[in-house]
Structures are given as C-alpha cells and as structure tokens.
C-alpha cells in the first residue's frame, strides 16, 4: 500500500525547465512544476497550453527535449509508461488505454499480473483487481465484466483502478472526469480525497472550474507552454483565473468583418437536432455570407453536430432544412449533391481528409469526381484546370500535382483538404477545427479564404478549439456544453473571457464564488 510518504526535505517530484518541440511548434518551454505528497494539484490552461505534453512527459509516453525531472531529489527519466508507473508515477489517460476484449481484472493487472506456476493466478488477480476497484470507488464494477460492454464512464473508472493497481505515489488524472456521470464524479472525488489523506500526490487536469474549486489544494496555470502562475486554491476568483489563462493579445491577423446580414434567409437551419446522449436539442441557422463559430471545450458535441449535419450519424431526431425545405441527408454523398451543396472539412486530415500516399491531383479531385468527369471517365483537361485553379487559389506549395500528398507540409496538406471541397463550390461549408497543428502563416491564409468565401455567398459553420480564431473570424459563436447550446454570442460579445466562461459553463462575474 502507498503509505504516507512525507518527506521532511524537498518536494516529492519536481520538473525543471522542461522543453518539448513538435516539428516547428513549441509545445513546452522551460516549464516547471513542483508536486508535493499529500496534496491535490490542479493544472489549468487553455486548449493547447501544454498541459497534455507536460503530463505525457511525466508519465513516460514522450521524452522531453530538455530539462530534468527529480523524484525525491533523484534525477529520473522514463522510457515507457510502464517504467514510469513502476517508479511510482501512474497516469489515467484521456485516450483510453484499455483492451476492449479483455475483462476488467485482466485490464487492471495487464502489465504485472500475479503469477503462480508461471501462469496468471486468476484468483489473486481477481482479489487485486477488486482491491483496486474498491480504491477507485468502483466496487460495483464486476472484475469479470468485459471492458467492451462497459459504458464510457465506467471504463474511465477502470482506467483509474488500473493506475491505482500500480500503487503509485503520484497519480495523474487527465480530464478523467470528462466522461463521468455526476454520481460517479462524486465517488471519484471521495476516492481522491481519501488517496490524498493516504499521502498520494495527485495531479488533476480539468476544465471544470467547480471541480477544481472543490478538490484542489493548489493550482498552476499554463499558457503557451509555460507555467505562468501558481497559487493556493481558493485565493483567486474565477474571473482572475480566466484572465491568467488568456493573458495574451488577440492577434490582428484576421480579416475585417462585414456588417451583420440578418435580412437574408438562412440556407442551413436545424431544429431540435438530437443524437443519443451526445447532442441534445440543437437548433441553429446559418445564413449565406455568414461565418458561425462553434465554441466550447473540446468534446462537447461539436464534432457530432457537424457529422450529423453531413449525414454521417444514424438515428438523429429533429429536422435539417436547406433553403427552408426540410431534407433528409442520409450520407455525405447526398449532402454534397447539387441542391444541398454541403462540404465537411473533417477533423483528422490524415485519416479522414486525405489519402496520404495518393497524389495531390487524386486527392484534390476525389470529392468532385462526378463534376470532373463525363460518363464515369475523368476529363483530364477539366481536372487539370480545376486543380491549377485550386493550387493557385489556396497557394498550395507543391512540386507538382503528381507527388504524394503525404510529402507536403502539414499546412499545405490542410490546404489540400479544403481545396478538395472548394472544387465543388459548396454553398454550405462545415469545418472541424481546420487549423489544428498548422503554422501561423497558413492559418492566416485560411482565415482570409473563409472570409472571401463568405463574401461570395457561402454559409460557413466553423468549429475551433482556438478561441482567437472564433473571436477573429466569426460573426456569431454558438457555445456547446454537454451536447447542448448554452450560449450564443454575437459581434462584440465574442470575447475570450465570454468564450472561456460559457465554455466552462460558469458566469465570468467576479462575485460568483469559486
């Protein structure tokens, strides 16, 4: 058992001047963190502030470029998550690391099962798993249940139990409550408080302010890959925290916005759109010439909303109207067709947007083959003309149309994804976080392009995890929380403070206590 490990001298764990680069992008820059035993330490920051990178380094998933980590004043480096866990740093990952076809007990003790005569001692394993589940406050989960049969929230608890089975001294929870139901959250909190009393150090990453207020002993705010402030919990108001998370100028790289055009009837309209428990009663409309942003924290149903509009989801309820006429959109093939003219720039360009080994030409014409061919035969002249036009329009930097698209830079790949759909001249453009992981220059080109398209009469619905973009690009922003529209911001109401506050589903007024 993790007995209380009070150290008289120095903190339990320390990270000093950690830096990490992904290609040209700096994810972390001389970041530092001090973790004390017997405390719950909350880490705050915007999407992309470097929190995930930090904990991945702590948990041995990735190696830092520079800086050092000290565990009880001893320099340590972890080459794998298993090694970190053996040293006492266990992490509950956001992306589940469970094996769906194995039982809960198998999963909890997958890396170091109890053995007897060289085989797995199932009785002992069961006992250990039950212990770990009980410690995780999930003793209602049967150790023999298959993970695949558990709902997401239960899986998350198994994940916590799996981390606890290592008997760690430091437990990291990365958005561990985001999939949990309210009842489970209460249980997990009780567990975490008990673990704290047992002397564990807990790192808690969450976007939910009220959770942090309830749990944390101290907080560290990250911004742009650095730790910018640390304070004892309860000493700052919500709005001060939001201020610390923003703390940077809004860049002025965005095209100017035209006056609102409320007179034009909406081209896309949806009413009471619902889908399982991920989308609840969504009603919105988008007019030609308008860029509407989708805001909120990651994973609040924005992706599902775009997929539902594009005809990918089954069993949606509610109506989707195009030009005021209700339509049934049963597949992307229907969504892209003439009278609807919808396009979706998907989230993950590598698996959903592009075929990386195929050429720029093939990728660019894939979504518009019906337009570029007659009787099923691709008209090469028309195709080349349209490709030239797109390469010029988006200034795609490529050595030629016949090189594999995988050889282009990330920004240019993203341009190809967008261009592939612009070939069809869509009337409704849905974008799912189109600027994630691309360079600033390309981002700005994309903003300009979107505005040009809107001015040309396209209706644009735009999900972004980057608040700057929503502020700079959008005429309106619809904020989602837990599959529901919680706020609609228009014009000058779109501020970073308002976006973060409504995304966290709290009021940004100072008088609302934490």
């Amino acid at each position, binding site marked *: 058992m993790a007995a209380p490990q009070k150290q008289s001298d120095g903190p339990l764990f320390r990270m000093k001047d950690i830096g990490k680069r992904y290609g040209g992008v700096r994810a972390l820059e001389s970041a530092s963190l001090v973790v004390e035993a017997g405390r719950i330490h909350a880490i705050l920051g915007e999407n992309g502030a470097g929190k995930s990178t930090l904990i991945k380094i702590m948990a041995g998933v990735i190696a830092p470029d520079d800086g050092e980590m000290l565990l009880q004043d001893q320099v340590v480096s972890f080459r794998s998550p298993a090694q970190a866990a053996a040293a006492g740093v266990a992490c509950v990952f956001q992306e589940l690391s469970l*094996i769906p076809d194995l039982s809960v007990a198998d999963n909890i003790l997958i890396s170091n099962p109890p053995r007897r005569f060289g*085989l797995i001692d199932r009785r002992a394993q069961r006992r250990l798993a039950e212990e770990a589940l009980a410690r995780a406050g999930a003793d209602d989960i049967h150790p023999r*249940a298959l993970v695949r049969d558990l709902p997401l929230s239960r899986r998350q608890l198994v994940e916590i139990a799996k981390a606890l089975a290592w008997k760690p001294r430091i437990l990291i929870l990365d958005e561990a409550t985001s999939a949990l139901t309210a009842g489970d959250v209460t249980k997990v909190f009780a567990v975490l408080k008990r673990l704290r009393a047992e002397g564990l150090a807990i790192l808690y990453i969450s976007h939910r302010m009220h959770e942090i207020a309830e749990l944390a002993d101290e907080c560290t705010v990250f911004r742009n890959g650095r730790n910018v402030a640390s304070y004892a919990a309860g000493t700052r108001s919500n709005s001060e925290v939001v201020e610390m998370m923003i703390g940077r100028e809004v860049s002025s790289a965005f095209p100017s916005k035209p006056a609102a055009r409320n007179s034009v009837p909406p081209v896309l309209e949806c009413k009471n759109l619902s889908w399982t428990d991920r989308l609840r009663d969504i009603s919105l409309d988008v007019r030609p010439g308008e860029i509407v942003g989708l805001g909120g924290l990651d994973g609040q149903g924005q992706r599902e909303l775009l997929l539902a509009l594009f005809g*990918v*989801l089954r069993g949606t309820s509610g109506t989707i109207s195009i030009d005021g006429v209700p339509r049934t959109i049963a597949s992307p093939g229907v969504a892209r067709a003439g009278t609807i003219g919808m396009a979706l720039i998907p989230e993950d360009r590598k698996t959903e947007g592009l075929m990386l080994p195929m050429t720029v030409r093939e990728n660019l014409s894939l979504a518009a083959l019906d337009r570029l061919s007659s009787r099923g035969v691709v008209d090469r002249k028309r195709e080349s003309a349209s490709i030239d036009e797109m390469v010029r329009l988006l200034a795609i930097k490529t050595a030629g149309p016949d090189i594999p698209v995988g050889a282009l830079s990330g920004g240019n790949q993203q341009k190809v994804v967008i261009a592939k759909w612009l070939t069809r001249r869509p009337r409704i453009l849905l974008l799912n976080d189109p600027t994630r992981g691309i360079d600033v220059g390309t981002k700005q080109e994309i903003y300009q392009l979107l505005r040009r398209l809107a001015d040309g009469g396209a209706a644009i619905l735009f999900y972004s995890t980057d608040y700057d973009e929503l502020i700079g690009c959008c005429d309106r922003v619809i904020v989602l929380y837990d599959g529901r529209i919680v706020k609609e911001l228009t014009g000058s109401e779109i501020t970073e403070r308002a976006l973060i506050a409504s995304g966290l589903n709290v009021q940004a007024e100072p008088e609302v206590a934490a």
Partner: protein
Amino acid sequence: MTEWRYWLNEQRGTLMGLAIFVIMFAVYIVNHPAGLTANVAQTAANKGVLLAFVAMAQAMVVITAGIDLSVGMIFVLTNCLASWIVVGTPMQTTFGVFGVLLAGALCGAINGLLVIKGRLQPIVATIATGAIYFGIALLLRPFPGGAVNEDLGDAMTGQFFGIIPSSLIVLLGAVLLVWLPFSRSETGRAAYAAGSAEAAAFMSGVPIRRAKLAAYILAGLLAGMGGLFLTFFTYTGEAAYASGSGYTLWSIAAVVLGGVSLYGGRGSAIGAIFGAFAARTTGDMLFVFDVDPLWQPLLQGIVLLIAISIGAVGLLRVRNRLDWFL
C-alpha cells in the same frame, strides 16, 4: 449480475460454437438409425478431430489478428513426415512423434518470424510458406505410401474403455496441455491484447511480439498434431494438395463458426474445436437424412453462408456510420 452470467458473456463466442454443434449433432443422432452408440461416436469423433486440430491452430493465430494460410500444408507435411518416422519400436515411435510435433512447431516458427521480424503481411507470407511446406511434403512422399506404428494408430483412433473415442481424449489432452496454459499465461493474454487493440496493448507495456511468435509456433504444433492423427487414420502419408488447401479453408470457416473474430482479440481455440465439429456434422447430417451426397457441398456452403451472416445483425446497432470503417 451473478457470476455465471459474466462467465457466459466471456465465453459467448465459444458457447455459440458449442450450441451450433450440439444442435446439429443432436439432430444427427436422433435421426441416425443406430442412435448414439460408441461406434457412431467414434466415427464422428475421428472425422471431426482432424479439422479440430487444424482449426485450433488457426484460432491461435487469428486471435492475434493474423491469419495462417499454411496450416493445411503443415498438416500435410507432418502427415508425410509421420509416415516415415512414426514406426518401429515403441522407443523409435516415441521419438518419431516428438520429431513430427517439432517439425510442426518449426514451420509455425518460420511463419511467425517472417510476420514479426520480416514484417510481411500474414496472408501472403503464409501463402508462400505453404507452398514450401507442400513442396517438402512432396519431397517426402512423391507417391502416397509409408506406414505408421499400427498399434499406436489403432489405440489413438479406437475407443477408450470401449466407450469413449480415444481421439477425443487426445484432443482434450491438447486443450489441457497447450491451450489452457497458453490462454492463462501472460503471453496468451498479450496475444488477445495485441489482437484486440494493439496500440493500447503497446501503451500498457504488453509483450506483443513474444505473444505473436508464440501463437504462430503453437499453431504449427497443433497442425502437426493434426497431421500425426491423419497418419493414424490412414496408415499412410500423402502429399495431397487439395487436402491441404481444403483444410486451410475449412479451418477459417470453423474458426468463425466457433465464435473467433477474424479481426482478432475474441474467441477461443475451444470454440474453434466446436466450430470444426459443427462443420463436419453438416456433412454427416445430410447422410442421415438420406440426402443425395451430391447435395452435400452445396448445403454445407449455404449453412456456412447463413452462419456468417448472423453476425451482421450487430450492424443495425451502429449509430455512427464512420464506425463501419473500423
């Protein structure tokens, strides 16, 4: 839920295979003029056991999300080898048996190394090794012939205590000595993990490569047991191409009937055994119903087609069409 329900859920694929087999076998026995006598059971067991070994072998590899298209050829190769070396004094015969099993395991190890170290796709790699193994089989037995220690052969294919078919006892032995230890070892669990979610398995520090190699080796070993048994039945070795490829194809069918997912991670070799017996019983059923034997392959095919289509019902539950493409 009570304990047995979880057990039921864990073993669903295997139990499905069992159910299919029991129903078919019951229908078969009820309509059999002699009913369930020791001789009827012996014949049925001996017919099924060969495919059962090969299907077990296939299941080993399929659980890791691989496939072994050379199992049938390993089966033929070990048959030919056995017709040379499983003869003579009890001592020689014993060495012969071990030699045959070792040869099977070696074939499996070659497959495994090509897939894991050579990074070749299992489908094509095992097609090629299958040709090699068949070639060696032909080298050993250009013409059908050879012999086997007949005492051993008769003992293995006869009845135990005059009731229980001894081939079933040996099959049970293979389950107890090969499958159960494997499935309860860390390596076996790693094989499931690798087949189910390789990335998550990697994140959890599971020994993926070791598990895959072990699966291929054991597959070779089990196919070798099948080849040995074929020799016990026929007293000869024969390098028959049609037999080898037929066993390979039916092993895949048996594995699917026995509830093993071709995408890996689900099912058990025990399920594959039931699948194999079910596949064999289809043929026998037609016999007791006095259907013209000419109908046999067609009806077998249709039963197979229906059995594999049942799984498609799950598609109706898919709410996100992108999940089709996993």
